């Protein structure tokens, strides 16, 4: 076991897979010699060579398309899109091609491609370095969508994704790269080495897709969340002395419906929290599932905590971000007696 932040854990996953499987290659903007703008591929080109850790032109559409071509010719590319905000030039290739290659060829062709991309706000990145577009991708049949919230899961999930024969978009909440974050920007940053999930096995291990993590068991309310909001929600519930059960989904597609419903049936109350915008967000899917599956167990309407339905504004980062205050309001509402 070693102390790792989320970046180091991701690097370790890629390092292990490059070493283990000669068909794994990495590609992306600034990822080779430089090691990536967030340094996730640091040292890997030196170790595995320029033919396995490939710098690309600044063309997300080209990166995704070329990676698809490689993947149908026997490679397992891991493509980095520098920021999730810049994934859209590759959108057509992801939606119209990547997601459907297996389906339209009756399984004769498939594209084992992993697209890694940093997402989320909280770094004063303004509207073009802060987005959480996971819901745009979960809406497309045929691609898996993953978002870890800590170093241990990040590494195990990334290895699983690379080995998976289906395409995955792997979102990395960049505000969590260096430490858990409870939503209060005025507090000093907390590093991962003080957190149990910052203890990471140095070798090969996997974390399965479609299996949520119950971060905290509780009896009064279920909070379904993922990414940055895991820690914000936990802090808000703790501040209210609520015995909340906190579920970190980790993988949105496939989704662990069992864990969600078992918990809601137990607590009878549910709050869904994500950083992305609200309207047609992934939270809406979660609410529908809980409503369909657990309606007769619910004691209050399900609440949603999200970013506002605006672009991410530079000056109002913390007014936009769904911090503890917004989570608390939802928790208060959901806890009101009927």
């Amino acid at each position: 076991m070693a102390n790792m932040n989320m970046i180091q854990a991701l690097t370790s996953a890629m390092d292990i897979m490059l070493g283990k499987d000669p068909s794994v290659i990495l590609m992306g903007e600034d990822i080779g010699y430089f090691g990536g703008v967030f340094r996730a591929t640091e040292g890997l080109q030196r170790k595995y060579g320029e033919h396995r850790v490939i710098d690309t032109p600044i063309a997300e559409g080209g990166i995704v398309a070329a990676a698809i071509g490689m993947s149908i010719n026997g490679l397992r590319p891991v493509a980095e899109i520098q920021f999730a905000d810049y994934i859209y030039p590759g959108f057509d290739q992801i939606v119209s091609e990547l997601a459907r290659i297996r389906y339209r060829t009756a399984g004769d062709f498939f594209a084992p491609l992993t697209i890694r991309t940093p997402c989320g706000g909280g770094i004063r990145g303004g509207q073009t370095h802060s987005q959480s577009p996971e819901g745009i991708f979960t809406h497309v049949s045929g691609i898996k969508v993953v978002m870890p919230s800590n170093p241990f899961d990040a590494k195990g999930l990334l290895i699983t994704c690379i080995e998976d024969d289906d395409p995955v978009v792997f979102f990395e909440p960049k505000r969590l790269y260096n430490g858990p974050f409870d939503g209060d920007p005025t507090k000093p940053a907390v590093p991962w080495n003080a957190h149990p999930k910052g203890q990471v096995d140095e070798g090969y291990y996997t974390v399965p897709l479609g299996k949520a993590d119950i971060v905290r068991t509780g009896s009064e309310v279920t909070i379904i969340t993922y990414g940055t909001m895991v820690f914000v929600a936990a802090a808000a519930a703790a501040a209210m002395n609520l015995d909340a059960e906190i579920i970190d989904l980790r993988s949105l597609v496939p989704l662990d419906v069992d864990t969600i419903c078992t918990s809601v049936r137990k607590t009878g109350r549910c709050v869904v929290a994500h950083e992305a915008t609200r309207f047609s967000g992934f939270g809406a899917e979660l609410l529908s599932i809980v409503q369909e599956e657990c309606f007769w167990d619910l004691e209050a309407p399900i609440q949603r905590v999200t970013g506002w339905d605006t672009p991410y504004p530079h000056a109002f980062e913390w007014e936009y971000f769904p911090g503890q205050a917004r989570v608390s309001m939802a928790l208060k509402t959901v806890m009101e007696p009927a």
Partner: protein
Amino acid sequence: MPIKSRLHLPHVPARPGEKPDFSYVQISPAGAVPRPQVNALVKDVAHLALEMVRVLDDNADAVGAWHPHLDASELQVGLRHMLLTRIYDERMQRMQRGGKISFYIRSLGEEAVSVAQGMALSPSDMLFPGYRNQGLQIVRGIPLVNLMCQLLSNTRDMCKGRQLPVMYHSKANNLFSISGNLATQFPQAVGWAMAAAIKGEGNLAATWIGEGSTAEADFHHALLFASVYQAPVILNVVNNQWAISTFQGYAGGEQRSFAARGPGYGMAGIRVDGNDFLAVYSVTQWAAERARTGGGPTLIELVTYRGAAHSTSDDPARYRAKDDAEHWPLGDPIIRLKAHMIKIGEWSEERHEALVAELEAQVVSSWKEAVTFGTLNEGPKLDSDLMFEDVFKEMPENLQRQQALMRKERS
């Protein structure tokens, strides 16, 4: 044995610890490239895309057919704008370091691109700048205070706090909003120019892109639409050799010049010494006249060097030779224009020093004024209600509700 295919990786001339090497930069002697008529056929101007238009020679003389013969007063304005751009950049970089603004991007070494091109165009031409074109804002007369208030996201910010620093715009001055997403504005400029042609107006559009961003599909859409419709547009590729850590070879600059993409798409392409104020002015004037007289688009590649880090989030010592900039063979645009002006008797070291002092004082006093409208951390503060405006023309009900919730949350 058949010869196997092999993945080629573009050569990067000098990484940290290696000797700077610019032997790959093809440089024509000043004055050597002929200047065709502005209505010449694309096939007859093919040489312009491969050679390098230069006017200022090593003796600080202006030579050859591209010499624009500007008045001394115009040269002085050009020098002033370039110096102001540089001094503004230095000061704002320091303010970022001091925590007053969240982010900054300098244009060190590339000042001639924006200033000479901005001056060669007319105020009614529509500009679609990139994030390293602050010189265009200065040429168009945007007060420094306005630019600074944008950097500060304060109560006078033209973007109402919604954009990262340096993403300025000015509707009144025909400067379109800068996008954080690379290359997106390149084809939009073509559309603007198509509209001008549809409406029968005489204005043209000009837009700027980094050589690294020419890799995006949007670049190619721009060239195709510009060529098909012969749109009155000037498409500028600022080849400053580096795209963060990525060398220009990775954008396709290794095999052929970026300017050569112009003739490839059926339009004129010109490669110019981007640090030669006079040459940049002159080729822009040529392209503008060509566009205004129905000759269609021109692609201009401005060969220059990114003298500073990519942005305040970047450290180039990690990926390029430390003294690279000092070996750049095309020199510094300010020093070169200044030397020429001194040589022709229109400038002096004393006047230069006085101008630097004047501009520094201007930047300092503008900053003092700008911060009275607030900084990121100190009041007065922008009203956070503004966050919900301008998503749509009329605020829809869901946003009204969210605005009310936000107020409650913050009370």
